[in-house]
């Protein structure tokens, strides 16, 4: 188990380093600067501002000092929002993405697993076809199609839900964005659960459980579901990372003040430090959730550890 963990970390840490390096140099090599605006700054003032943020030094030196800052937990000041550090900016925007993402994950996992189990138990019956239908719709229709269509239907035609806005996370404002975020996940999760359940229900240990005379609901929940859920875990790792860092599209369409919406704005404004901070948050989340999924799977399934 320890060897397994070490091997995974041996990939994760260099990856994080590559992410930071590539993102840093990509932004700097690109044309444009955070201090370009409609009003052109006189060269002396621009030089002054650049000196203040240490941007007059050679790029390599800036990179090293940024790297050592990050290692000490200092992500630097925002270049666009005066008197705010990158951490301030993240702290303000991140809770919105987090709340949306967590709600969507919980709903998607619960609904998806239930639908998948139901479909597997009623294979080739109406409930099964319904699940497969939902899965096809959820997988193939992108969120930027479902979101405006739902806005059109529930927001403007029926007028029962707000079209957009956050309103400090009020329930009616959450319904549509969470639905749009959860729908594709429900589709994939139910598909994975269905496939896993069908396989598990044909296994020897389920036959043994039946032979022991266990009631059907116990066979399903205690024996079959436990095995069926394994492939789900390795899927949920990266999926959670994606949802928790905020969906660029959903936050933009519903005009929610989250991390995803902020990312594009900051990148357009060349707010180097803020963009770097977001890239790092995303990378750390995705790497650690993947690691967690791997560990969980290794803990649950001895075959993985040996591989």
């Amino acid at each position, binding site marked *: 188990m320890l060897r397994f963990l070490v091997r995974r970390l041996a990939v994760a840490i260099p990856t994080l380093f590559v992410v930071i390096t590539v993102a840093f140099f990509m932004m700097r090599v690109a044309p444009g600067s955070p201090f370009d605006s409609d009003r052109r700054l006189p060269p002396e003032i621009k030089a002054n501002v650049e000196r203040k943020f240490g941007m007059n030094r050679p790029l390599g030196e800036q990179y090293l000092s940024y790297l050592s800052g990050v290692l000490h937990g200092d992500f630097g000041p925002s270049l666009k929002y005066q008197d705010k550090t990158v951490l301030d900016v993240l702290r303000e925007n991140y809770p919105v993405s987090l709340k949306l993402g967590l709600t969507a994950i919980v709903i998607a996992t619960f609904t998806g697993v239930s639908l998948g189990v139901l479909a597997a138990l009623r294979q080739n019956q109406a409930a099964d076809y319904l699940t497969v239908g939902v899965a096809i719709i959820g997988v193939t229709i992108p969120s930027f199609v479902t979101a405006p269509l739902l806005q*059109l239907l529930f927001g403007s035609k029926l007028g029962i839900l707000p079209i957009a806005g956050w309103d400090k996370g009020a329930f009616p404002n959450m319904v549509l964005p969470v639905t749009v975020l959860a729908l594709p996940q429900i589709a994939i999760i139910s598909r994975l659960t269905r496939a896993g359940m069908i396989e598990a229900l044909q296994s020897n240990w389920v036959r043994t459980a039946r032979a022991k005379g266990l009631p059907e609901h116990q066979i399903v929940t205690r024996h079959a579901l436990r095995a069926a859920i394994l492939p789900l875990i390795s899927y949920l790792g990266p999926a959670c990372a994606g949802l928790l860092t905020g969906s660029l599209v959903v936050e933009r369409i519903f005009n929610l003040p989250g991390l995803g919406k902020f990312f594009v704005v900051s990148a357009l404004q060349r707010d180097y430090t803020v963009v770097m901070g977001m890239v790092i948050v995303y990378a750390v989340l995705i790497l650690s959730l993947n690691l967690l999924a791997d560990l969980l799977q290794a803990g649950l399934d001895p075959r993985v550890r040996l591989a």
Partner: protein
Amino acid sequence: MTGVTLAPGSSRGAALMETAVKGRGLWDDARRRLVRNRAAVTGAAVLAVLVVLAIVGPWLVPYRYDEINKDDVWLAPLVHGHLLGSDALGRDLLARLFMGLRVSLAIGATATSVSLVVGVIWGATAGYVGGAVDEVMMRIVDVLYSLPFIFFVILLMVTFGSNIILIFVAIGAVEWLTMARIVRGQTLSLKNKEFIEAARAAGLDGAAIIARHIIPNLLGPVAVYVTLTIPGVILAESFLSFLGLGVQPPMASLGSLIASGAQDMELAPWLLIFPSLAMIASLVSFNFIGDGLRDAIDPKDR
């Protein structure tokens, strides 16, 4: 995925017997199974229609996709000869839709080709050479795999401005990783087969063996993955267009049409609904074809 469980035992058994008699190859077998899959056939038919429309469609409409008619602003469908209506600048939606379809499908095909070439060569080399080379090449894939790539694509678009070539390259660069993994896995299982041994004994060098013997034998799983990559690419481009980083106006793609349609949906819902339908039709048919192909080529892996 299609949810239809054929009776595998009987049909496969029959197919096997006929193989023995007539010498039916893997591909004939796969084609037979594919043709019997109704969802895949429907998908292929819809896709064929969409491709034809994308190619000839723009010439069938009496308007150009970027033609501004200031007297025909915000027309509902079927008014003034605008079959699907017109937008805020009086541009004909049908003409723009055909153009968008053309651009989206072209990006899908091109970026997928990029990922196909890079992924197949990378994966086949890693798998065939093996050892330290394999280790290094696949570690690179692992590291790239865990990069938040969509962030990089966005950074790329934002910093270098969005031109179509860059979109091709950026999306293709993301998509080749899975291809490389699939191809490597297949190569590993192929390389100890007798016919490879025979080729080596006959004096062929590594590159020739990869090109002439490994790659042709990989085509099955690669074909399946290609049909699932194309919709992925179309989605990725639409996603960029939606964020305003993809195709720039007056050019259109399905994503950019949906994006602008979503802004005007209260005034002119048709601007959102028709492009969305076209998008859904193409994505669903690609997925049906891909799933059908997978079932046909490898009936076990369902």
